[in-house]
């Protein structure tokens, strides 16, 4: 059976390997022992002080119950951030898993070919690097159980991406929200969309977790001379820009800067590439102007089409946890990066080269945003040609900006997988050594039913979680 941890490396996964050495020294505690430890070494130190000794008859005191002091865990507690790093790590290969040979490699055609439905395809290494750079892989997905990343081409993939690539090829703008039940594969479809974007030479921009932008986790600063006042996330945008540059280097290095950027704090020459524009600064304070310049360059005619995806749509459809200088809460749509996405999704931005703007909803980590639900309901009804449902007349808190942001979007509902698809997936699991049972019609239909009529995440849960460490 495959374990998620590498057996050869006995050390605990820690931030020491992730963080730069300079940052490591900065928050190093003065003592090597954590402040609130109950370990025996600390207790032993107090032996000399009379006041801490307790009662005179300490030795004869009757101690009842199982819990006795001083018997705590003597091992060192994990350092700051170590637990989170362990939780959020993304492991894309596992040497202990069996190698599955004979599966085809993913090509752009495979994602739109109806004949490929139900196939398991391997992701080419370059694509894996690109997807990893834009953080398309999620910690909740079980990539670490397998030797190398593979994925299932399902009917929804072909339906969605076939339509998307065709329309983007005609220089149209595709504005879609991916919806569906919990664990049905929405983020995975987002990943497949990005894969299609990379393979069709689109500039892929991805915001992997929308909640990072609104929950006041990252630094923000007001953008001067904006009405209404807008705010940017300097470090986040810098990181995002570097991700865009390294993931799309092949395309961006071929494109030459066309506009004059005289207002920029760094000098950008006319003949430099967009890749060098994206790489122009390492300063967080210049991140937003340069990102904006890059965005303007990409909107020029003759550029490659843009794919802008965001996961966790409901998080950006509310008032954020950030505060303005006057201590009012900032609406998410006043955060510049989110505003960029929302305007693109709402159809306010004109894309002359075609674009795919995809918002992925989540069900696991999501808020109840009534405005968004109603807007998506109306969009779905509009799409199906049904009468558009009215807003609830007794709900006063509808957010007009949310309706504005989702005006005219298409809603794509991800469905559960069929039994043949489930079968090919289970056969792949069995070949990888993580599913130790016979895969026949009986077991497939059993798991399919137990997984709520083919909900992919539940299928994994019912089959793989017994072997997950």
């Amino acid at each position, binding site marked *: 059976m495959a374990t998620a941890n590498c057996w050869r490396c006995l050390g605990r996964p820690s931030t020491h390997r992730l963080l730069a050495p300079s940052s490591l020294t900065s928050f190093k505690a003065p003592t090597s022992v954590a402040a609130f430890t109950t370990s025996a070494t600390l207790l032993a130190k107090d032996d000399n002080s009379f006041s801490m000794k307790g009662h005179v008859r300490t030795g004869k005191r009757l101690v009842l119950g199982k819990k006795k002091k001083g018997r705590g865990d003597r091992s060192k507690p994990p350092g700051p951030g170590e637990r989170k790093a362990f939780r959020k790590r993304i492991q894309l290969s596992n040497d202990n898993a069996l190698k599955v040979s004979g599966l085809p490699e993913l090509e752009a055609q495979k994602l739109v070919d109806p004949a490929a439905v139900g196939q398991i395809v391997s992701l080419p290494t370059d694509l894996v690097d690109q997807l990893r750079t834009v953080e398309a892989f999620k910690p909740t997905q079980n990539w670490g159980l397998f030797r190398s990343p593979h994925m299932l081409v399902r009917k929804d993939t072909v339906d969605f991406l076939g339509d998307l690539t065709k329309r983007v090829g005609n220089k149209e703008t595709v504005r879609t929200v991916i919806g569906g039940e919990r664990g049905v594969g929405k983020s995975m479809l987002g990943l497949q969309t990005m894969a299609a974007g990379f393979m069709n030479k689109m500039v892929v921009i991805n915001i992997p977790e929308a909640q990072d932008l609104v929950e006041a986790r990252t630094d923000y600063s007001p953008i001067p001379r904006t009405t209404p006042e807008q705010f940017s996330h300097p470090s986040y945008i810098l990181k995002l820009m570097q991700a865009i540059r390294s993931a799309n280097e092949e395309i961006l290095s071929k494109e030459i800067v066309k506009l004059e950027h005289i207002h920029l704090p760094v000098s950008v020459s006319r003949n430099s590439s967009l890749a060098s524009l994206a790489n122009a600064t390492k300063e967080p304070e210049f991140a937003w102007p340069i990102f904006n310049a890059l965005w303007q360059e990409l909107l020029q005619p003759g550029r490659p089409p843009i794919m802008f995806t965001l996961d966790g749509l409901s998080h950006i459809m509310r008032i954020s946890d950030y505060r303005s200088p006057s201590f009012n809460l900032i609406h998410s749509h006043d955060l510049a990066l989110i505003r960029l996405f929302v305007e693109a999704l709402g159809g306010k931005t004109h894309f002359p080269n075609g674009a795919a703007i995809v918002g992925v909803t989540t069900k696991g980590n999501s808020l109840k945003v009534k405005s968004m639900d109603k807007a998506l309901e109306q969009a779905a009804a509009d799409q199906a040609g049904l009468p558009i449902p009215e807003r609830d007349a007794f709900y006063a808190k509808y957010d007009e900006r949310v309706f504005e942001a989702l005006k005219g979007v298409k809603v794509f509902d991800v469905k559960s997988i069929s039994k043949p698809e489930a079968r090919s997936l289970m056969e792949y699991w069995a070949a990888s050594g993580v599913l130790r049972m016979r895969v026949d019609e009986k077991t497939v*239909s059993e798991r*399919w*039913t*137990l997984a709520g009529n083919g909900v992919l995440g*539940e299928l994994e849960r019912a089959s793989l979680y017994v072997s997950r460490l």
Partner: protein
Amino acid sequence: MSSMRTSFRCLRDIRPTGGKAAGAQWHPTSEASLAYRPKQPFNATRSIATSAPRSAETTEIIPSDVEPADQGRASVVQVPYARAVPVSPSYFSRKPIFNDAFVVVQDLARKYARLPIIPKDKVTPTAWRTKEQYRLAVGEHAKGRDYATCMKLAKRLNQIHPDLMPDEVKAGLLPFKREVNYYLNQPKVQPIDQYGRSHGVGKRKSSVARAWVVEGAGEVLVNGKPLSEAFGRVHDRESAVWGMKLTERLDKYNVWAMVSGGGTTGQAEALALAIAKALCVHEPALKNPLRRAGCITRDPRKVERKKHGHVKARKMPTWVKR
């Protein structure tokens, strides 16, 4: 036992046979017996006497239906007292009803020993009274050993070929049969409706589940939700469809169910019962496998009620010294 039998037979042999309109239990009048009771007033309407040797032993009772108008009638021999002889010869034993029935069975067994019998498994199942049930019904403490011997004979008699079964055997075995032969109970046939659905109800703890099963491809909807949404635990999902899984019918039927009450475990197991019952309507032959899978029998356990003086059902308050 045999000695007892002999004694009963003797009792029967000396039993008088002279009963006419007056009733079989009364012996015919004799002058000698009358002479024994001169002091008694002549107020009896009928002249009844018992035989001389027994007159000393039997109790003397005064008949109650005395009419004063008849006192002066000279033609009627009026007997003040009659010795009552009990109906049953085993009246003076401690269990007359059982003994009589036993004797009848013994006689019948001897009488019809040569009638052809059929094998035990071909006999229509009969609900015999158990020893305890018989005791309760008759109100006598029949001995276990005697009852077992009697039942052995009775079962042998019951094996007589049904075409040749004499009526008196039927009558003789009747006291040992339960009033209702539950083996002959016919379960109510549940119909499959016009859309091909069958309906089953299951209960567990305080949950009630109703399931409609129809031929299909294995889709399950519980309260309008797929199984994964209805039950968070995989274990509960498995127990809900356990019967179908074990009988390999999971991919052959669709289930539409409604569950209410109780918690998730109770709901899942109530659903298992409901689905199994509905499945039996489609395929009655599955009942035994389903019973072995534990999906037919209702688990009767419920939350035990709280008692006064207790903290919970059984828990007692902590002992306090003062």
